[in-house]
Structures are given as structure tokens and as C-alpha cells.
């Protein structure tokens, strides 16, 4: 891997060079009732819109690769005949400025299902391949448990990754395009002192994680505790609102529905993200619901993230960003659920 350093004041120059493209990044959206700043990823218009000292954004970055609603195809209908038009809805590259490692890892995990596997999804791949990612190191917040999930640092899936060393940024460079941009701002080779400083910053970050989730043998424990009472207790609390999936960077389940215009001449096929916590998730026509209870739906969500995905892809689908726990109206957080299922309340 190639490393570079550049002084902090040159960050705006890097931004301006990239800003001939559409820029997306963390930006301040307002304050909550306790006065805490709320951030979200959005299109940026100036460097000042960028809030690089952001705490976890409300929503993840997934909507730029996996929109909540997306038109998959449209139909021209002429009485009994029809024609299908497919548009994967990608027209230009995006620059993602300031993505934290958990969100980069989330995209890497989505790649495994949506870009790999048996039927690669062109709607996703088209968008994913046209994203230029400038990663940014973060400092752990109380709800973060990415350290436990092994997603606190990103190894791939970005173009360049910035680590704050006080007066300068230490950059990991993963693509030729990123190297070219860094040459334009006259970034330098890091000195031995910079290496040392970088290692210190990372060591300090590792010390600051407040929340831990024990992931040893979690797949087996989830199987052993399939009928645990803890699931019913959490199920009683759950409101089945699907907010957790809404904010989750790796929830990709969806439903497809077709709508026809009133003149019966055109129709659209729309994909909308869904949540496994919603009542109709596994309901089949004829009325049978494979997961009618709240507890089985909640349990299923944990099984898919921490067991099913591990079996299929050797790693958990959860990145430990803690957004679901923060957004949950019933205060259900993964660290607590997993601890209680393990029998450690």
C-alpha cells in the first residue's frame, strides 16, 4: 500500500479538485431535543457544508447505492402487447468525502451479496463502481462496537483513506485516480515520525471503545439459544416498526411491486427496501405467515446478521455502527440483545 501525508490546510484544495464531480458527505442537519448535533450524508455544495468532525450519521450511506425506492423497469402497454424497458439509473460518478470505516466495510459486505453471488445486481454494481471514496478515520462513540465486529478499520473498498495526525493527514492510497489527486495537492512521502504518529493514533483509538460484543462462537450460541426466553422478552419490547433496518448500513432486503397508470398504457416496477421486522415480510399468498410473532422476526434479524451471513460469507453482516440501537424507539441495542441471549444480562 502507498502512504502519503499532506498538511491539513490543503484539505479544502483536495475537496475543490474533486468537486468538479458530484460530492456527497456528512453534513449538519440540525439538533435533537437534547441539543446534540444531528448529521447525515447528503449532496454537498461547498466545502463549508462538509462536517468532518461528525458523529455517526442518522442514516447510512447505503441510499446512494441502494435507494429506498428505485424503478427497476417500465412497461409500455398497448392493449394486449407490451414492451419492457430497463434502466439501471446510473448516469454519473459520485465522490463520497469523509466516510468512516464502518460504512466502507458495510459497502464491502453489500458487495458480497449484491455484486457477487449467482446473479450480480447491475442496479447496485453500476452505482457502486461509480463511487470514489475518500475515507476518514473516526473516534469511537459510546454506541460503537465495530471493534468487536472487526470493522473498525477498512482494508479495501475505498480510494484514499485519511487519518488525522493533528496538523496533517496521513493518507492510505488505493487507486491510481486517488494517487493522481494527491499528486496535484503536492502530498509528500510520510517520514518515520509520521509512521510512528499514525501507529500511536490508531492505538489510542483502539483503547477508546466503550462497548464490546462477545462474538466468539456466536453462530453456535445463536443455534443453541434458538428457543431462549430472551427472544420473547425482546420481542415484547419490539414495535416492529422497521426503523433498525431503515438506518442499518447493511440491511438490503426488499420488496417489488408493480404499478399501472390509470390510462393502462404505462406501468412501473418499483423496488422498495423492506424490513424483516415488518409483519408481512414472510407472509405468503393464501395468508400463511412464516414469522407471525414479533419475537421470531426480531430473532430472524439477528440470525441473518450474525449467523446466516457468517455461514455464507465467513463474516458477520453487522458492522457495529450502533445506528439501530440509537434509532430504536424501544431501546433495543445489539450488544444488550446478544449479551442476554448468551445469558449474561
Amino acid at each position, binding site marked *: 500500500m502507498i502512504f502519503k501525508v499532506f498538511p491539513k490546510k490543503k484539505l479544502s484544495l483536495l475537496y475543490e479538485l474533486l468537486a*468538479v464531480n458530484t460530492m456527497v458527505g456528512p453534513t449538519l442537519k440540525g439538533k435533537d431535543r437534547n441539543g446534540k448535533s444531528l448529521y447525515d450524508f447528503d449532496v454537498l455544495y461547498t466545502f463549508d457544508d462538509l462536517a468532518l468532525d461528525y458523529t455517526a450519521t442518522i442514516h447510512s450511506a447505503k441510499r446512494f447505492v441502494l435507494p429506498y425506492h428505485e424503478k427497476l423497469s417500465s412497461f409500455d402497454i398497448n392493449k394486449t402487447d407490451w414492451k419492457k424497458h430497463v434502466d439501471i439509473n446510473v448516469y454519473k*460518478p459520485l465522490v463520497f468525502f469523509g466516510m468512516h470505516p464502518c460504512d466502507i466495510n458495510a459497502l464491502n459486505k453489500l458487495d458480497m451479496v449484491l455484486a457477487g453471488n449467482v446473479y*450480480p445486481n447491475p442496479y447496485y454494481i453500476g452505482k457502486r463502481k461509480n463511487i470514489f471514496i475518500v475515507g476518514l478515520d473516526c473516534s469511537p462513540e459510546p454506541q460503537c462496537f465495530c471493534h468487536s465486529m472487526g470493522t473498525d478499520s477498512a482494508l479495501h473498498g475505498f480510494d484514499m483513506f485519511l487519518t488525522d495526525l493533528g496538523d496533517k493527514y496521513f493518507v492510505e492510497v488505493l487507486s491510481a485516480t486517488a494517487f493522481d489527486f494527491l499528486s496535484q495537492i503536492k502530498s509528500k512521502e510520510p517520514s518515520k515520525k509520521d509512521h510512528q504518529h499514525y501507529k500511536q493514533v490508531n492505538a489510542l483509538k483502539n483503547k477508546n471503545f466503550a462497548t464490546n460484543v462477545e462474538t466468539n462462537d456466536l453462530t453456535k450460541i445463536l443455534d443453541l439459544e434458538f428457543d431462549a426466553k430472551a427472544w420473547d422478552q425482546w420481542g415484547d419490547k419490539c414495535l416492529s416498526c422497521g426503523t433498525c433496518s431503515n438506518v442499518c448500513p447493511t440491511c438490503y432486503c426488499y420488496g417489488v411491486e408493480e404499478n399501472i397508470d390509470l390510462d393502462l398504457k404505462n406501468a412501473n416496477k418499483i423496488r422498495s427496501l423492506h424490513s424483516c421486522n415488518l409483519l408481512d415480510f414472510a407472509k405468503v399468498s393464501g395468508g400463511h405467515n412464516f414469522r407471525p410473532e414479533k419475537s421470531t422476526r426480531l430473532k430472524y434479524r439477528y440470525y441473518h446478521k450474525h449467523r446466516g451471513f457468517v455461514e455464507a460469507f465467513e463474516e458477520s453482516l453487522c458492522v457495529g455502527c450502533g445506528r439501530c440501537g440509537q434509532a430504536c424507539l424501544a431501546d433495543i441495542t445489539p450488544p444488550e440483545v446478544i449479551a442476554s441471549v448468551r445469558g449474561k444480562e
Partner: protein
Amino acid sequence: MKNKLDFIDIMHGSDGHHRKEDPNSFEYSYQAEITNVYSLTKTEKLYQIQIADPKLRTKFTFKPGQFVMLELPGIGEAPFSISSSPVRHGDIELCIRGAGNFTNFLSRVQRGTKVGLSGPFGTHFPVEKMHGQDLLLIAGGLGIAPLRSPLLSVLENRSRYGRVDIMYGAKNPDELLFTYQHEEWRRFDINLDITVDQADKQWQGRTGLITEILKERIQESTDLANNTFAIVCGPPIMFRFVCDMLTQAGLPMQKMFVSLERRMHCGRGKCCRCNIGSTYTCIDGPVFDYWSVMNLKEAI
């Protein structure tokens, strides 16, 4: 402009060697036409569907137990097991119960309606692996729809199999499907046993559970563990009883095959609606051996 990033158009091949499959195929559906509709019972109909392009029709191949996604523009898309024999290629038959929005709409369409067809998807019954062995084909209710494809395939290649027993159960005689074909299936070299839970006045056949027929068949068999394969389709409660009974009789779990039903929105392992743990019913199933089903939490 120098700093403008290159746009990668995956639909038109500017994606180099990273492309694994033609991206156009993901949302592709064959233009097909409903050539005939037969009413089988009050709620079930048999649809004969033909892929419009003769070349594509011949190219379309599937194996018994696989399913297709059937699309009606503006109405919806849903998965259905193919009920016809694989030798008929893109001239398929689907047996569909009017149960939801899509299927109820479908029950009102007439022949000549143009539909979209994608697939075939999923795993299949390994009928070739079963050559030289005795077969138990067991269906309950609408389970005869996915079972009919391997059944027809076996009938067409009858000499390749040992003893063949078909057992079919329904709630009452009115709900029996494919009654017009039963005599055709009941040949000198095939045993067809039909039973209903509740008989009516005209019914002259057997009454009772399918497990009773199975019990008799098991008593007749000499070497169930080594020379028999079973295909079981029906509601989960039925195949659980049937498979448990066969397991106790010595039939290994990996020689019993079942077809699972789940909600599906894509058929391509993406929408996650059919997911059971690590398994997608659409790409890892719908046909599973009984061992895999036993091993999956909440599969049945």
C-alpha cells in the same frame, strides 16, 4: 475536464474483466403467451405458457423442481414451480391457485395474454441420480404441482427406474388436481394411490391420511435404505410426518427430497424475503434434501 472522474458504464462493457455476467440478463424476461387455461378445481387452474420466440423456446431448458418468475406488467411478479415435463422446453405448464392479488388476477385472464417469464431458478430434484432405484413420489394438496414435473420425467424414462409408487392425498375429492391424467399415470408398472381426508357420496377411492398408504408401502419394501429415493411435496406438516416415517423405516435423509415454499420477490438471492438463516430458498432451494431442511432452523 481533467479531474472529472471516468463514468463506468457496466451496461455497455466499459467495466473490463470485473464483469461476471451480462448485466442485461438480471431484469430480463422472456416474452411469453398464455396459450391455454384449464380449470382443474374451483380455485386451481392450469396455464399453458409458451415463450414467443421459437428459438428462445427451444433454448429454454429446466430441470424438474425448478421454478420461474411469472410477470404481468403493472400487476406483479410471482414465483411458480413448473408442472410440465422438461422435454417440452419453453412450452411450460404452471398449476396455480388463486390465492393472492396476483394469482386472482391471473385466474381472470384469457388465452392470448402476453406475460413475462424469467428463470428457470433454483435447485431441482436429482432425477438422474435416482436411476436404477425405486421411487416414492408423495404429494399432498397443491404439492402435486411441483411433483408433476419429476413425475412426468420419470414416466417418460420409466425403464430407467425400479418400482415407482405415486401417493397423492387431498382434503376432499373436489380438490384433487389433474384427475384427467390419473388413469394415464396408473399404468401396469406404476402404483398410483389416491386418498382423501373427507369423502363425498361419489367417492369410491380411499379415505384417510397419506401416511396410511405409506405405512403399507413401507411394510412391502425389503431394502428401503439402499434402493429407494423419495420426493415429497406438500404442506410442511405433511412432509414432516411423511419424512419422519420414512426416516424411521430406514430411508437415509439425503435420499428424501422436499420442495419448500417461501415469499419471493426476485428469485435471484437478492431480496432476502425467502431467506432461512444462511439459505436462500430461491437459489439454494426450493428443492432440499431432508437433511438440509432438518438442519435449518425454522425451515419447517
